[in-house]
């Protein structure tokens, strides 16, 4: 299984900060598209993606146990 993490506005739109999904074998881009269509949320498109706490490109293949984070535009400082 894999854990998907959501933050900030995306977390509020989805209604939870964490979703479990069997995503092993999928690419990061496919996971993103799945979430976008499942929740009808175009704001997913503005997110950067991270795997295991590092930014990762969308062609990254997910392996069992990976934690996938949706990172909306950041605004620290």
């Amino acid at each position, binding site marked *: 299984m894999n854990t998907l993490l959501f933050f900030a506005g995306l977390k509020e739109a989805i209604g939870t900060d964490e979703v479990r999904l069997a995503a092993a074998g999928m690419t990061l881009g496919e996971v993103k598209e799945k979430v976008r269509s499942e929740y009808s949320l175009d704001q997913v498109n*503005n997110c950067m993606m991270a795997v295991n*706490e590092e930014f*990762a490109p*969308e062609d990254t293949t997910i392996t069992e146990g990976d934690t996938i984070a949706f*990172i909306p*535009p*950041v*605004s*620290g*400082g």
Partner: protein
Amino acid sequence: MEKRCWITSEPLEIEEVTKRVIRREAGAVNTFIGTVREFTKGKRTLYLQYETYKEMAEKKLEQIAKEMERQWPSAEVVIAHRIGRLEITDIAVIIAVSTPHRNDSYEASRYAIERIKKIVPIWKKEHWEDGEEWIGDQKEVKPGVPLKEEVK
């Protein structure tokens, strides 16, 4: 060793952060303090709510500190960012940089805050008199696609 980059929900103490970079080799200590502003383009902020992906955010702050060391090898860096509810004038971030000479300390400090605003997963929600909104100003980044340098 104590962490030199951290995220906390406690109030930040300027003295506590800056004293960690003061040392015999340094002739300059630059402290950047980011605070909560009341008015933005005429709109009044009541307070801010900061949220983070803490594990990743601390890693990214540490990455920025390493980048600074590569560019300014003599620099000593400490970065602290606060999360949770912050009131007007509260300190959100402190960046302390010490270097032998002043020019490097200014440049390195500026570099740190610009990088924080691009790659560190921290978000703020503005609470105004008439509403609220998550702010995001990752303008330099193409939506959804991390820059090459962001991907390890």
